[in-house]
């Protein structure tokens, strides 16, 4: 049972971490583009590191496909399998109850992490030059903490 719950959570954490890594070069390119917009006189150039994006698609495509196949067994129908998170356990009333409790825990976690993350963004002007992708990390910490809270609650009540 623990593996059944842990596996999709771990895979989703890997996807989020790789997504964050893939967003860094896009974010850096956007910063360069913003500089160009301030002074559009040529010559200008935008450098973009493609490796993280490539690795993201390389690793996450099979993971997403695996989670979709797994989800299709659990939630009947294409759209349900595509849109519903694989962590939702809803096979019977007890699983629905446990999932509801875990969602409650996750919602409470959001209540705490959202203002904390917003407060952490106040530090951004101080670290902007040395740590320009700081907001990406802070924002991605919100779903990560929610997923962990969901998993801990589900694991405890399963």
């Amino acid at each position, binding site marked *: 049972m623990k593996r059944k719950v842990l596996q999709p959570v771990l895979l989703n954490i890997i996807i989020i971490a790789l997504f964050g890594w893939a967003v860094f070069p896009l974010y850096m390119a956007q910063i360069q583009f913003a500089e160009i917009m301030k002074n559009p006189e040529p010559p200008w150039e935008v450098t973009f590191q493609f490796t993280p994006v490539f690795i993201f698609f390389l690793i996450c495509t099979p993971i997403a496909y695996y989670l979709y196949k797994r989800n299709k067994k659990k939630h009947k129908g294409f759209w349900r399998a595509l849109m519903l998170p694989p962590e939702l356990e809803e096979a019977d009333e*007890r699983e629905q109850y446990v999932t509801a409790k875990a969602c409650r825990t996750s919602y409470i976690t959001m209540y705490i992490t959202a203002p904390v993350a917003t407060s952490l963004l106040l530090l951004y002007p101080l670290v902007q030059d040395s740590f320009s992708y700081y907001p990406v990390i802070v924002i991605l910490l919100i779903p990560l903490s929610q997923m962990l809270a969901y998993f801990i609650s589900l694991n405890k009540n399963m």
Partner: protein
Amino acid sequence: MLKNRVKELRARLSLTQEQLAVEVGVTRQTIASIEKGDYVPSLLLGIKICTVFGEAMENIFWVEGEDER
């Protein structure tokens, strides 16, 4: 606390947890949780279990302890 005789009655009918779970339309883990007293079943599930065992509700489920009132 809700007590029950599900395990005893299941053994009497030589049913496995899996078989009872299929009969009442839940997972095996749910039957295990009910037997251990970790999960309080819904009224509908309780009635389904009573139907399988052919017993009245009060003969299978009863309240014991501080919640009894």
